[in-house]
Every structure is written in C-alpha cells, then in structure tokens.
C-alpha cells in the first residue's frame, strides 16, 4: 500500500491550509504532529476524499484517489476529530449502520460488529444508546466503526483527545494492535501518543511537513541540547523569556526547568536526554508553550 501526495495544496479563500506537500507513506504507523492550525485535519480530510485539493494530487498505488471513488473508500477507515454519531442509535445499531454504508454484507457485518464490540471493550454497552456513552466509550465506538471494513488505510484524527490517562493507554494499545499490515496515519498534538506507537513521525507546520523520521532521528536532528536547571521562583520568568522551556516543575525550595539551548544556561545545568516533546518545542518554538503541547 502506497499513498503518495504530490504537490498537494488546499486553499480556503486566501489562506493556504496545505501548501505544496510532497510525501509518500507505506504500510506502518505514521504520527502527524503539529500545533493547531498546522493543516493536519485538512490533510486528513483530503486523504479521506472529503475535500478536493486546490492543487496537486493524492495517489493510492499509483491511482488518483478521487478518481478511484468507491474503490478507494472501500479500503479506507476514518475516525474524525469531531466524531459525530446518531444519538438515538444503540452501539450495535450504529456499527451495523456504518457496516451497511461501508458495503459489508449483512452476515459479514453482524460478525464484524460482534468482533469489534468485543475488541473495543464495548460488550456491556452494545445495547446502550450512543448518547448514553462516556467520552472514552464513544471514542472506542469511533475506532470500531473505522475498523469495520478492515481498512488497508486507517486515518485517525486526534483519537485520544479528551480521554483520561487509562483510556489513552488502552487506546494506544488498541491502535498498535490494529496497525499490523496496514497504513495508519495518526494525528495528534499529544506528543507522547505518537512516541509510543508511531514508526514514523511527521512534523507539520503551516501546511508543510517540515520534518519526518523515526523518534530517534528527530531527536538527533536537534542542534541544541536539553538541560535540567534548578532555579529560584523569582528567576523563572527570566529563563522563560530567554530560553525555550519544555517543562517546569515546582518544588518546595525552587523550580526545576527543562531548557533547550545551544549551551548550558547556567554553570550547574545538567545535560539530559531529549525526548519528542523537546523536539516539538524545538521546531515549533513559542507556540509549543501552549497548554496543549505539554502532556
């Protein structure tokens, strides 16, 4: 399975959401990281044929996906960021309906719905109305619907948003389990999610993929070091203004800062191992200081 984006562009009025993007994906898990407004959702919507590109094209094994139509959608599974559902349907009804519009034969659909309800831990909630489910259960129903047709291409837009830590871990494991022999593109701004499960991480900014590679490659690409510094509380603002601070931990006698810099910010600063969050901050600068960037 090869999904290729050639000069892919999407403009809304004067705003370019995806800007002449060139990238090729094959089987494996791809984590798409970027701040809000980077163009992740627009890219995913184009990959799901929900939006037509303004320029360029997307091909699947050499064929243009919009031209493939139902042939492409047949091998596609999508969990959107704002996953909507039919509130009066039970989980079983909802999945059966999606199975029907995905073209599964009734007997196959029944079996597949049963399997996925079990796999996503929704057995007890199968007869519950969708509107009665918790946030985590809804997301699980969401991943179940995306998997109904056993898709070769699975696109998950912010699948862990709004989940508690337990649900997130469970969800990550589920995605890892489902990722075998298919192409999974996972978008998030929760860095630790992709760190655990993605083979390839794509950093997206202003509609472009600015960096792609394995977690280690991305970390190694940083030209600055990560330092742990212990400072007094009244010094924090000074360091925040001067350096990129990827973490801040208050203690009873001061504050421990995690600083990205070319050289040690203070003499007793300790060099520590960089992680993906540091990479995120390094490449996305001040914006990474937003509340969403730190897990």
């Amino acid at each position: 399975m090869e999904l290729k984006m050639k000069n892919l562009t999407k403009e809304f009025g004067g705003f370019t959401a995806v800007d002449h993007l060139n990238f090729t994906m094959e089987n494996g898990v791809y984590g798409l990281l970027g701040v809000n407004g980077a163009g992740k959702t627009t890219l995913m919507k184009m990959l799901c044929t929900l939006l037509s590109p303004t320029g360029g094209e997307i091909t699947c094994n050499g064929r243009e996906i919009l031209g493939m139509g139902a042939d492409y959608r047949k091998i596609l599974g999508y969990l959107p960021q704002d996953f909507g559902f039919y509130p009066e349907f039970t989980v079983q009804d909802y999945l059966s309906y999606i199975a029907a519009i995905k073209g599964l034969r009734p007997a196959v659909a029944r079996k597949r719905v049963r399997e996925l309800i079990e796999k996503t831990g929704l057995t007890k909630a199968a007869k519950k109305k969708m509107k009665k489910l918790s946030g985590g259960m809804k997301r699980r129903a969401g991943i179940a619907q995306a998997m109904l047709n056993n898709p070769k291409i699975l696109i998950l837009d912010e699948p862990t948003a709004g989940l508690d830590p337990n649900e997130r871990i469970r969800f990550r494991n589920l995605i890892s389990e489902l990722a075998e022999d298919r192409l999974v593109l996972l978008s998030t701004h929760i860095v630790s999610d992709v760190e655990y499960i993605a083979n390839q991480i794509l950093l997206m900014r202003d509609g472009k993929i600015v960096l792609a590679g394995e977690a280690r490659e991305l970390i190694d690409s940083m030209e600055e070091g990560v330092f742990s510094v212990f400072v007094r509380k009244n010094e924090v603002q000074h360091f925040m203004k001067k350096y990129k601070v990827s973490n801040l931990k208050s203690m009873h006698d001061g504050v421990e800062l995690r600083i990205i810099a070319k050289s040690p910010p203070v003499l007793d600063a300790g060099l520590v191992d960089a992680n993906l969050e540091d990479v995120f901050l390094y490449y996305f600068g001040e914006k990474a200081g937003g509340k969403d960037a730190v897990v």
Partner: protein
Amino acid sequence: MLWFELKKIWSKPMNKAAFLLLAAVVFAGSLLAARDVVYYREDGSKISGFAAARRLKREKNAWKGYVTEDVLKKVVEENKRARAESDTEDGALIKRQGFSDIRDWINSGFSEPGDYDYYMCDSISAEEAAALYEKRLEMIKKEISSPGYSKKEQKFLTRKYAKFKAPLYYEYAEGWKALLDSQYLPTLMTITIVIIGFLVSGIFSSEFQLGADSVFFSANYGRNRAVQAKIEACFLVITAVYWGAMVIFSVLVLGILGFQGAGLMIQTDYANWDCMYNLTYAQKWLLTMFGGYAAHLFILFLALLVSAKSRSVVVAVTIPFALSCAPMFLGRVPGLTKAMNLFPDMLLRISAFLRDNIIYEIGGKVFGVYEMLIPVYLLLALLLLPVLYAGYRRSELA
C-alpha cells in the same frame, strides 16, 4: 441502509411526537367532519354524526334513482306540500330532508349565477322545474359566452360541459360529501405536509448537524448507495404517511357516515352544480388524493433539496409550511390570484376548489388547472431527485 435511514427518523422523540400529533389530527378531523352531517327530528331537535347519517340515509334513499322530469315535478309538489303542512319554515325543512339536495339543484339551476335563492323552489311551477337540465345548459352557455373567456376557452368549456349526462342519478351520499366538499380535507393535507416535512427534514442534514458527515461520506457507499437510501427513505415516509393519513381519514369519515354514493356525480351537491368536471365522488376522491400526493412529493423534495444544500433542518421545515400556506393568502391580493393558482398548494385544495373551474390558456392550448398542475408537479418532483442525489453526493466538508 434503507432500514437504518427509517430508524433514524423514527428513533427521534420529536418525530414520534409529530407522528402522534398527526394521528390525533386525523382522528379529530374525521369526527368533526362526521359531526357536520345533521338530521332534524320531528320535534325540531338536532342530531349529528352516525345517528343522523342512519336517518338521512333512510329518507334520502326513498328518492334513490334517476332524477327525471317526473321526479323534479314531484320534488316541487312535495316541497310545496311540506311548506303547506308546516307552520314555520323550520318545520318545512324537517319534512324536506329526504329531497333537500334535489330542491337545492332547482334553487341553483333557476337562481341567477352568483345569487343563490333558497326559496326559488317555492316560487316555480312543477312544469318549470322539469326543465332543470335545459336551464342548467342555458345558464352555462350564457356564462361561457361572457367576455371573460377567449374563443379557445369557450370551446374548451363547451366540450367539457357537453360530456355532462342528464338525468343525474341520486341516492344518499352524505359520507362522500362530508369527506370531499368540506374544508377538513384541505386542512388535513396542509397539516400532513408540514408534519411530514418535519419528519424528513433531518434526513439530509442530520449528518452535518451531528458531525457524522465525515464518517458517512468517507464510507464505501457514502457517495452513492447510502445517498440513494436516503432518497428512498424520504419517498417511503412521504408516501406511507400521506396515504396512511388520507386513507384512515377517508375510511373513518365514510365508516361513520356510509360508503354509499361513490358512483354519484359530484354535481349532485348543489355547490358543484356548475362544475365543469364530470366526475363521480369516487373519481373526485382519486383526483384529490393523487393531486395532494403530487404536491407532497414536489414540496417535500424541494424542502429536502434545500436541506441538503443549506445543511439546516430549520430552513427545510419552513419550506413545506411556506409553500402550503403563503400562496393561499397572497392569492387574495388582486393581480396575484392568477399566478398564485399555479402554485403547488392548489393541489392540496382540489376538493374545495374543483368547482371554481379554473382554466389557463398556455401556448394556444387550454387546460383545467389541475389537469396541468398534477403532471407538471409530478414531473418536477421527479426532476428534483437527480439534482438532490448529485448535489448531496458531491458535498465537501470544510
């Protein structure tokens, strides 16, 4: 897929409430229509509904048969006897209940057009009354030759009226008259279209409203068969609810008042005396029902098209309401009447307006308004389907 589309509609509590409201309107409307049939007892007291229908049937069926010259003479004589034997006009009315319809024909036939004289029958002789059908023809010829009609319209009307066959056959038909000659049926049709509009308005907008659009359109059948299933669901709901409401209403009214009289010409109700359509009550029922169905299909598919484009339930709900009610009021504005008579709401009111003989000359051809509107709106409804299908399947989700 179709099953789930229907389930989406019926699973909504508001839709269930709307459906129950329609059921209540059908039952209440049929009881009110039946209650309008009244019978006066000898003591002057009044009864209505089923009991009245039973007594009227007995009295009216005593006059059952072709209303020939002899029957018309007999009606005039009986009418005079009833008046002579009664102290008051009300007393005479009680005695006339069996032949009051035929008395009304005579009143209509001999009154000046637009100036119905209730006492006309009291003042003419039996010999004069015997010429009722000739008098009708004479009046119609006079009316047709008025300057308001073009040559082609005159020819069209003459041809229509020539098909009228005298003498008329008469029997009890209060059930059909209550069903088709009252205001209940047009009102019910207006309520039905608004309620069906409410039921189906979400079919093409709910995915957008609920945020389920991405999953829907990225599915294998999301841009073909699933859209088709939505259209099929709409068609089924419109058809089932419309015909269900109309048939139940008709069966209830006729069940209470009697099915007898289906083969009677509509001219046997004096209000239709000058009607150019030579139809039996059963034929008028079919025309009314199919006309109403054509209006429902057109107006509701138009509402669905707007719903699919605007992705809004509210806009879609207002269209059936606006199209079924607004032209009726706008039609009262001088200068707009002729244009408003071409709006689809006219098809919801066939039972009430059929007697008005509305005709149009278009491209040198003359049409009765319903002969023209029913096929036109059916065709337009059919043409809306591919537009709806193509427009919805190409939806882009920004």
